[in-house]
């Protein structure tokens, strides 16, 4: 309590009307509070239930972090877009489409991997741009416009792939991927030496030939952390971040005081498509294969992670740190259930309940923030 007083009186003169806000209360009013406490609960739960099953071994941790990270990457973008007041349901299809945008050039046309990556991102920019322009010009809910794009992209992915290769799955030669100068940035692993050292010291488990079971940190985890940090700085510390909140909170008002609403929305749609492409590139390069059906339902998982993370479905409020905790809960439970030996079908039940709790909790917080009764 004393600490709080100091902070208040340092900035400007103390106002007798400022109620002292305890640390706990100010924490409670943060959007990511729910997801943070949820994540802690999930870890305590699985710590007790699955603590001895290897879930919290180096390999187990890397595994559930990797699942969380891949979802987290698209959740960051979906979260920004939701704060900006729009949805993108084409994220999942974009993952499948971006996957073949890499695999076909590399395997059929003989492009180098790095060029295919550049190509895939260019396609993503176009798709995001089209999404944004359609939403702006038609003034239809983005829910409907991107639902159409969901089918268009998935259909294109399947039919183009079948037309060109005669199949719907494409395998890439692993040596081609490994030789590429840019591929490691997406499909590689870092701290390989450190993990080897840990294994040599006997700190983490290794195979009989001395190679550790967990042989490094996948790049996806790094991408996730970098994106969360950048997007958080963007949201709370830049002009553009203020515009995102403004556009999602009250679009007409924002436009009337000079916020370039259309530009903000188009950039957010482009970023969302690019995040789906990043997800696809990571998957394609680490598995050396592309499947036209990849990414199904990911759009909903990204929205769920954001909602669990405290972002309002109605826009104008939220945090990408929250979406990261949402994705972490998602990944931990998805793999944790497997370790506990509970039938994995229960995961969906859990997910549904989580979403319900999160939405009710968020709604309560929003009413407190806006002073609504």
């Amino acid at each position, binding site marked *: 309590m004393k600490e709080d007083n100091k902070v208040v009186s340092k900035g400007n003169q103390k106002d007798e009307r*400022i109620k002292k806000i305890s640390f706990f209360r100010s924490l409670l009013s943060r959007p990511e509070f729910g997801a943070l406490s949820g994540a802690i609960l999930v870890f305590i739960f699985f710590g007790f239930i699955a603590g001895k099953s290897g879930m919290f071994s180096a390999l187990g941790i890397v595994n559930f972090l990797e699942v969380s990270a891949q979802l987290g990457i698209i959740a960051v973008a979906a979260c920004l877009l939701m704060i900006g007041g729009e949805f993108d349901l084409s994220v999942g299809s974009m993952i499948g489409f971006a996957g073949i945008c890499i695999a076909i050039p590399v395997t059929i046309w003989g492009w180098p991997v790095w060029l295919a990556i550049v190509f895939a991102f260019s396609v993503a920019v176009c798709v995001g741009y089209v999404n944004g322009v359609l939403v702006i010009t038609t003034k239809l809910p983005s829910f409907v416009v991107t639902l159409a794009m969901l089918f268009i992209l998935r259909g294109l992915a399947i039919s183009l792939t079948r037309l060109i290769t005669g199949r719907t799955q494409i395998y890439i030669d692993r040596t081609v991927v490994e030789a590429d100068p840019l591929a490691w940035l997406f499909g590689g692993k870092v701290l390989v030496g450190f993990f080897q050292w840990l294994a040599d010291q006997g700190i983490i488990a290794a195979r009989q030939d001395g190679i550790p079971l967990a042989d490094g940190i996948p790049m996806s985890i790094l991408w996730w952390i970098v994106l969360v940090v950048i997007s958080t700085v963007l949201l709370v510390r*830049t002009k553009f971040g203020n*515009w995102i*909140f*403004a556009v999602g909170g*009250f679009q007409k008002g924002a436009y009337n005081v*000079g916020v370039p609403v259309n530009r903000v929305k188009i950039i957010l749609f482009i970023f969302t498509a690019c995040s789906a492409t990043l997800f696809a590139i990571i998957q394609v390069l680490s598995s050396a294969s592309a499947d036209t059906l990849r990414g199904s339902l990911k759009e909903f998982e990204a929205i769920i992670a954001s909602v669990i993370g405290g972002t309002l479905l109605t826009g104008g409020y939220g945090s990408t740190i929250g979406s990261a905790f949402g994705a972490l809960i998602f990944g931990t439970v998805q793999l944790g259930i497997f370790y506990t030996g509970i039938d994995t079908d229960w995961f969906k039940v859990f997910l549904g309940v989580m979403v319900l709790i999160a939405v009710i909790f968020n709604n309560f917080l929003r009413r407190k923030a806006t*002073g609504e009764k």
Partner: protein
Amino acid sequence: MDKKKVRDVNDNSDMELDKVSRFFGTVIALKDITFEVFRGKITCLLGDNGAGKSTLIKILSGVHKPSEGDMLINGEKVILDSPRSALDQGIATVYQDLALVPLMSIGRNFFMGREPVKKIWPFRFYNKDFANRVAKEEMAKIGINIRSAEQAVGTLSGGERQSLAIARAIYFAKNILIFDEPTAALGVKQSGIVLKLIKHAKEKNLGVVFITHNSYHAYEVGDYFYILNRGRTVGNYTRKDMNREKLFNLMAGSKMAS
């Protein structure tokens, strides 16, 4: 009726609409409107519902572009293609819906669209401390002492929100300040405060445009009076050749005419 330009001898036009029309499809919202705003004077724009007041305001504040006619600022022709370019010309508006985002803080709302930045090479960050300090100071200048610029606008009372919107517009208006029906939803006491703020803006040597359908409010502060009806100028008067009854009758007359 009198459609000529009228002005007091010493007044120079700050902004001028020259024969402006605006059509929405086949609907003629405004036709051949000539309208002038003078620095340091309050120009009242009166008219009944549907007279075209809102359309005219949207043209002045850059929301709509005129279908015909020119807009001049300090004698030079300008084209405003968005509220952003209007603000760049020093034209700020207090909108009827206030254009505030309830979920955002007072400081963020105050600088929405015109955020101050702090350069830390190679980045440009939103200068939160500056925004919060200025928002608090500017609110205090018009008599509202807020607790903290960090609090969400949603937690403010209606009067405080109105004051925030006005303080913001006064801060950013360099040439013209437009009030779009600021007293429409207010009680007697609050209306009095807003009228005082309108006069305050006039003293800052801004060209003030005051839209209302309340002839008493208009007469209390106005220097010039434009009366619109059905998208056309019905009359345009200086304070000298206007009195309370005449204004009231003109308003009532324009009602009958419709």
